[in-house]
């Protein structure tokens, strides 16, 4: 049974860490209706900043806010390009993402590895003082769980503030925002800043977990984020009370679980992505079936 337990723990940990990225994509794609491709650049940006700070002996916890600030700056850039220079949303993201590829390499120099004798957030004295007796994979799970819960609660609270409500209004009904005499451009920029700060935070924690930064680690992260948000919201579409953040979080864990399931199936290695695609399709069809099923029930009732 230990095998299964270990698999569940490490897969959940991956899902949790990457859920921060899903939160970011949830804000831009689902709330702002803004397809933001900056993610492929801001994710490794967080890792690059973290790797450089760690190899220079910085406090591991300090890397988290610094990475978030760097990601926020990336989001701000995309926002300004889109709002002030009037570049189309997709292209604004592509421009920042492309620039970030060079910037990330400039920051890190090359792909970077953090040696085992350097403490990460998972092995820092602060964590080991509480969880020192438990093994590393448990510590990774608990630390990421705490961080994700904290971020999720803060986000849910933010969405209920005036600024958060405006954010939601821009995606749903931007005319309303203008009629409230608010600048929807500013609101979009705020959304992009928060989103990319979260994406970079995710990149930073992945760097802690893997002890590595590679310049290509961002490739495909937008697609991952979109998939998790869509999977999550499809599954929870009949529950109105479920927060979007919860849906994104569950979506991320399910995505990683599907990957792990495909790996565990032990089929020819090249079929991995195909299996994953089939699993996703099954989940989406299952979600849609539930929705229709409930609709029929309501009609009958």
């Amino acid at each position, binding site marked *: 049974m230990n095998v299964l337990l270990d698999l569940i723990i490490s897969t959940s940990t991956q899902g949790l860490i990457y859920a921060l990225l899903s939160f970011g994509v949830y804000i831009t794609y689902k709330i702002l209706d803004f397809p933001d491709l900056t993610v492929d650049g801001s994710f490794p940006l967080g890792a690059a900043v973290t790797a450089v700070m760690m190899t220079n002996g910085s406090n591991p916890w300090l890397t988290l806010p610094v990475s978030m600030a760097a990601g926020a700056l990336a989001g701000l850039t995309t926002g300004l390009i889109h709002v002030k220079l009037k570049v189309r949303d997709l292209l604004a993201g592509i421009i920042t993402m492309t620039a970030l590829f060079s910037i990330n390499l400039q920051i890190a120099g090359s792909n970077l590895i953090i040696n085992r004798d350097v403490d990460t957030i998972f092995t820092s004295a602060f964590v080991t003082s509480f969880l020192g007796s438990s093994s590393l994979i448990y510590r990774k799970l608990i630390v990421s769980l705490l961080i994700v819960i904290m971020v999720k609660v803060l986000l849910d609270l933010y969405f209920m503030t005036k600024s958060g409500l405006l954010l939601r209004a821009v995606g749903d009904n931007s005319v309303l925002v203008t009629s409230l005499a608010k600048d929807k451009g500013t609101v979009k920029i705020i959304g992009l800043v928060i989103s990319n700060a979260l994406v970079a935070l995710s990149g930073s924690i992945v760097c802690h977990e893997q002890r590595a930064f590679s310049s290509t680690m961002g490739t495909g992260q937008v697609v991952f984020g979109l998939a998790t948000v869509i999977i999550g919201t499809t599954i929870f579409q009949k529950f109105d009370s479920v927060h979007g953040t919860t849906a994104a979080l569950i979506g991320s864990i399910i995505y990683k679980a599907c990957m792990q399931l495909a790996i565990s199936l032990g089929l020819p290695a090249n079929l991995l992505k195909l299996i994953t695609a089939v699993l996703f399709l099954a989940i989406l069809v*299952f979600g849609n079936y539930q929705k229709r099923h409930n609709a029929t029930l309501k009609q009958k009732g």
Partner: protein
Amino acid sequence: MKKLLAVLIMATLAISTASCAGKDDVKSIGISQFGEHASLDNCREGFLQGLADAGLKEEEDFTISYQNAGFDTAIATQIAQNFSANNVDLMCAIATPSATAAFAAAEDKDIPVIFTAITDPVEAGLDSGNVTGTSDKLPVEAQLELIRSMQPDASTIGILYTTSEPNSVSAIAEYEAKAGDFGFSIEAIGVTAQSEVTLAADSLIAKNVDCFSNLTDNNVVGVLPSILEKTNAAGIPVYGSEVEQVKKGCVAAAGIDYFRLGQKTGLMAAKIITGEAEASEMKYETISEYSIYINSQALEEMSITLPDDLTGQAIESSEN
């Protein structure tokens, strides 16, 4: 939703219990390969041959679980975690991203990791700890010597490389340091993505280089046929860095044999799983032997005659 999760868990459970059924004295080896690629495949086959050479038999002495990440680092992470959860006795990682992921996943249980096809294990942080393996550092000097003997009048060597690949960056540095000894100068153009490689090839040709020399750069090697199309039209010979590139149409290469590299790794792995040695006490090894591979059809097209001192040792590697 609950049903769905239950199905996922049950499926994983069924699979993992099935996969961990085995005798205790049969050691399990998880091979994590970064992607499907001729040189990396050769490494893997060589690795299995190395285990066989050490007298170990599959099913009797060891079992193999092979996974390939399709060049995706996030998947390489999950593959390594899967191996760790299944308590494999040894992880074999082919190429740097897989090795980094394996080493991170092995940290908790201190599972030994053996790597291959890594150019610079020191830079990759894989030179200490419960980890060892083999490096595929290019025989740069031999390559320069080969080019000099094939093209006595050449002065400039053009090289294309990806700026984000540490393997390529360190190889370029070595080329630049040693080119002078053979009377060459290096004209290197860096790219950031595969789509830029052919454009960069055009500008190298425009700079009138006397030949191209390849590294083991994945982006460049991936579009080798379209590079060769351009260089053939311009009459510029291209030297490869290993046999697979010569098969595809490079004129020649001084390259290491990835099958033999894998074989060496397999022999080291055998020592670890039989308990003869600890990975933490074994230093990583490089392969010092190299072979000269030639493609006589390509040589003929470039009207290069093979020097007499090479005819004996050169291995004909054209595909047809």
